[in-house]
């Protein structure tokens, strides 16, 4: 194509009407082929000008978006002139997930739309199949996890037999029973996830609640937590209890991955699209191999974990429309990053 146009450009001054017409027909023919190709594509293609106005959209773009592309794009707030990639969930006319990419091309921006519903459904099915297998592993997991608290209770009851007024033993029994209760609850929530009950709020609230819960443990192990929270933090749609559970899982992991006197850095930030939380620990870190299986059930790297915490955390964050990722190097600690869409954006996308 490029050679053809260059040839025409070079000789256009020397061409008579007959030849010009011939070349014009060739161009028109090529153009029609491009149009047909655009029409035939299953993926949506939209050309935007420098102001984000729609220049051209293929039929697939309209079908995938379920409405006039210009109207649809207006609700999406796509970045113009930069590369970006996002996934959106639409519920009209049917539930589906679309991957939307923007690709800058000279002055224009190309919007590329792909239906990823089937892929998502497959992931969900795989997860469900995995969960069925997980139930079989459950007995082993529970047995392993409840060993320590049962041991502690058993020892302390023997202490109480020696001295029934031993206050400390009573307290340890109580706290270990609470721990058993927590373990059971975690397994139940892994088996039967509750839909999040979303209300507007900031992620700083559940984070602070969680740090309060862990305060004694942090102090006892002399772990320094540095909190970096911007003065004004945009709201997100969240289920406070579930998000607190995610923080709890991540912080517990961080604690278990480090020696006494370690450091945890928590940084909250926001841009015009998302609110992010980065939790960085000074722990043992992980290999690439461990990282690649991180969010799978029963893939614990810890000697004493259930292997469910991160799977549950990921599911909770995904159901909040967000994402969770981890970066790590052996010996250099691990950083978890949670990204949640800002409230306004989520409302727009859910429309």
């Amino acid at each position, binding site marked *: 194509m490029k050679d053809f146009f260059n040839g025409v450009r070079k000789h256009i001054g020397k061409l008579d009407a007959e030849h010009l017409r011939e070349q014009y027909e060739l161009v028109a023919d090529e153009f029609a082929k491009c149009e047909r190709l655009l029409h035939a594509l299953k993926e949506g293609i939209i050309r935007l000008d420098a102001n984000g106005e729609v220049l051209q959209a293929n039929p697939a773009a309209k079908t995938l978006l379920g409405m006039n592309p210009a109207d649809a794009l207006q609700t999406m707030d796509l970045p113009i002139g930069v590369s970006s990639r996002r996934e959106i969930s639409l519920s009209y006319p049917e539930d589906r997930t679309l991957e939307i990419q923007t690709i800058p091309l000279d002055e224009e921006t190309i919007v590329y739309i792909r239906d990823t519903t089937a892929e998502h459904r497959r992931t969900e099915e795989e997860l469900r199949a995995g969960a069925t297998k997980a139930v079989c592993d459950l007995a082993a997991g529970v047995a392993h996890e409840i060993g320590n608290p049962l041991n*502690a209770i058993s020892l302390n009851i023997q202490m109480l037999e020696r001295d029934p007024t031993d206050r*400390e*033993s009573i307290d340890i029994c109580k706290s270990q029973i609470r721990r058993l209760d927590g373990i059971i609850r975690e397994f139940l929530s892994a088996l039967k996830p509750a839909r999040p009950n979303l209300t507007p709020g900031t992620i700083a609230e559940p984070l602070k609640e969680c740090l309060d819960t862990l305060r004694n443990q942090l102090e006892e192990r002399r772990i320094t937590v540095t909190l970096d929270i911007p003065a004004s933090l945009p709201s997100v749609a969240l289920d406070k209890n579930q998000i607190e559970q995610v923080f709890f899982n991540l912080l517990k992991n961080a604690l*278990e991955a*480090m020696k006494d006197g370690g450091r945890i850095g928590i940084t909250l930030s926001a841009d015009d699209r998302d609110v992010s939380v980065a939790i960085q620990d000074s722990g043992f870190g992980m290999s690439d191999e461990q990282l690649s299986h991180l969010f799978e059930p029963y893939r614990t790297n810890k*000697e*004493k974990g259930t292997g469910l915490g991160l799977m549950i955390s990921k599911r909770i964050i995904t159901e909040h429309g967000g994402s969770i990722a981890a970066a790590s190097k052996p010996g250099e600690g691990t950083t978890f990053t949670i990204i949640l869409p800002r409230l306004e954006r989520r409302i727009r996308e859910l429309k």
Partner: protein
Amino acid sequence: MKPKILIVDDEKPLRETLARWFHATYDTLTAPDAESALKLVRENPDLALIITDVRMPGEDGVSLLRKAKEAKESAKQN
């Protein structure tokens, strides 16, 4: 004098319960991980016994015992 023992477990409730359990008959030291346990081993050459958890974050209990033995033998030679 009571014999001196060292209890190593990353689980605080277990560690402290064991410490209280042996407290009456032994002089008990505790450590939450292998590294701090080894420090105590070196500082206390009169240590009579180590009771350790095997699965702990960081170095495990078996490796701790091996190193403790090495430390004790090299202390004897000096």
